[in-house]
């Protein structure tokens, strides 16, 4: 789609939307949001960029094949589940830092789990969309 307005807007919207998606991811623990919606929002951010600039530009912006996010996310989620086993707790027990960190709040293993979900969802959505766009 060739529209200067959309192209210019997407350049500003992409970082904003990505930031927003991370915001959604982080607030999920206390208020509506979470890794799944966050990942989808991030995907929408890239899709907007794709519509404005074309597949090639978005690809080079991402640098890596979107498929790379999938195993990364899976590994992260899995690792956060396995981590408690090293301190002798059952699989997927939540581990928490005792002191909250400014801005982020209390950090626990479930946050990493959610980040993994975020990455998988982002990777899956973009892989499917990119492949379809490529073939049309």
């Amino acid at each position, binding site marked *: 789609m060739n529209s200067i307005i959309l192209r210019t807007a997407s350049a500003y919207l992409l970082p904003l939307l990505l930031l927003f998606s991370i915001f959604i991811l982080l607030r999920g623990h206390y208020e*509506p949001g*979470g*890794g799944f919606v966050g990942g989808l929002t991030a995907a929408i951010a890239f899709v907007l960029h794709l519509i404005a600039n074309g597949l090639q530009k978005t690809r080079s912006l991402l640098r890596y094949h979107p498929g790379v996010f999938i195993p990364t*996310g899976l590994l992260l989620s899995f690792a956060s*589940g396995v981590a408690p086993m090293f301190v002798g707790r059952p699989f997927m027990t939540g581990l928490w830092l005792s002191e909250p960190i400014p801005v982020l709040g209390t950090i626990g293993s479930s946050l990493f789990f959610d980040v993994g*979900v975020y990455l*998988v969802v982002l990777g*899956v959505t973009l892989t499917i*969309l990119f492949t379809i766009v490529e073939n*049309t």
Partner: protein
Amino acid sequence: MVIAVLSGLLVSLLLLLLDFNKRWPAFLVSLYPATLTIYFLSYLPGILYGETLNVSQPWIPSLQTNLDFRLDGLSMLFTLLITGIGTLICLYAAAYMRADPKLRSFYAYLCVFITAMLGLVLSDNLILLFIFWELTSISSFFLIGFKYEDPASRKSALIALAVTGGGGFMLLSGFLLIGSMGQHYSIQHLLSYPPILTNDSLYPLILVFIFAGAFSKSAQFPLHFWLPGAMKAPSPVSAYLHSATMVKAGVYLLARLSPLLGNQPYWNYTLMTVGGFTMLYAAFHALFRTDLKAILAYSTLSALGMMFFLLGIGTELALLSLVTFIVVHALYKAAMFLITGVIDHETKTRDITKLGGLRKVLLPLAIAGVLAALSSAGIPFTFGFIGKELIYETSLAALPFAFLLTAAVLVANILLGYAGFISGIRPFFGELSAEHREVKTPSFWMWAPPLLLAFAGILFGAFPVLSQDLLHQAANSIGASTPLPPLKLWHGFSPVLLLSVFTILAATAMYLFLKPSTSRLQWVSRFENYSPKAIISGVAAKGKQAAASYTHTLQNGYLRIYVMIIMLFLIALICCRIFDHLHFDIDIAALTPIGIYEVVVTALIIVAIGMILFTHSRLASIIAMSIVGYGLCLIFVFYGAPDLAMTQFTIDTLTVVLFMIVLLRLPAFLNLSNLRIKIRDGLISAAFGLLISVIALMVLQEPTNKEISRFYADNAYPLAKGKNVVNVILVDFRGSDTMVEITVLTIAAIGVYSMLKLKMNPSEKE
């Protein structure tokens, strides 16, 4: 012991990671089974005194599945066979497959197999045993199909997997039945009161399942045909898996369970019939073969049949002769397979009609072959002789069928002796053909293992006292309790000796007068169409056809038909269920009052649906679809499900974008449905919508169970430090579910990706 059993998995992983071909010689792998042999030998003195070693480690206690291992006489016997012969096989394979670039993966499979086999014979827990049982099937699949470039090799691997895997499925059903009746999966616990199983009305059903498993693994008629096919595997594999160890797993299992399930008419007669029939059927078949490996395969089948036969007789003497025969057979048959492997490797043929006089070029193997053949025929001073005497004693004492059983055993023994002579002696005597004159004696590692195995057969035969204690302990651990007779070379003049002598004479006479020929092979192949193999493969092919036609009807590639079939099926299914007790009693006053927002949104949705149905523009219908989607999101918001609404919003947005992207590429809007199809579709949709409404109304009738949601709401903060209950459930309380879900998402992405990337030629499409 847990570590010793499971270490093979680690070794196999190491083998895959390390490139030992270049730096270290391959035969170093044999250190692994050798270490295990020494480790288990260190328990031998204790076992000989009748001790047992029990190790238990919790694994999945909630499913009563623990790493329970138990080393007793029978397990010890099998363990030593597995690790001892395994060591020789590893050494042999290093020389036999030296040039093979896939040697590493070969050893990796072999180590997995050793682990599986050890686990199988040491498990005391039925579920654990089943897991190892399946692992042997899987690792043997890779070993049979090792030369995977060869289609015949792949096919036999698949047949073997299908037969043994199907049997494994039966076995699991049997184990689950045993577990549900005996309230326990530990064999030792179950043994404390066996009548709980044998008196149950489902006892015959258990037997059917367990027998199906054991017979498929140990290749009994009519499931025997995978074993001759499995001879496509490299010779070390045939020697190890298909004669010495894996095929005896079924025998081991039934022997292990015989104190639990045995000594019942069903048990004894089935085993005697199936075992006896296989014993004779396979021995006759061996007569007609000219391929050395095929002769060995059929004589192995026959020997396995004899083992089940003995188990079916079930007397204490029968159990002793069973364990003796297992060792006898493992020693001479593994040796013969290894010898055949060398012959194949050096002369490039296994056709018995073309081989002869090889003793001039392969002397050490000729010695091994003769020794193994003597043991298989049961010549005095070989271990085979002792085994055979015991078997005749057993069958003569098995009243009231002594005559019939002895006759069957006699015929089988004569034929087995003949097969042994043919495969162990014939290739080495007679005239050496011109093309084999240049054959060189292979390296030490290729002739030493078979020679050692054959020699062990003589050693145990000449000094029976060497193996006596272990064999007694093995028989004791499967139910023989009274003092067993010592193994002796000389039993005095008795009918048994007469039978032995007659067996040897008859086998020798057959060897002298009956030459193997291809014409007989052709004669017997006329009956191929009526063989169990042809029948079972035919049934399998028909099943595949039926599945294909069924799939073509129900999944013909049109998405709309799929949706229609799913809807129709659901309507039919649910209507049948709810039709008879459909009654509404809804208290309208108790429902949440409907506000202006809901009315407006619902009206919007209805208008949008109407637009989708009647528009002639794709763009308009997509926008209308998105209105429906967003309208639903708003309804979620009104009724307090913000998380759901957020996700739905993003999903809807992405769907619309996706449609927009592909929209430009689609052909012009066509109205393909005629009036009849429209009416049909309309009726189905109306019925489906009505059904869903009815279900929704019925749900309202049920008193809602708030217990679960209250638990999550109350515990989200104290236990998981989160205030958003939905998210806490997703990432914490039910995090494992989410873990699986994102895995499923990944699989879906891979599926979409590969389907879109796959550019098939029209000719490749089916």
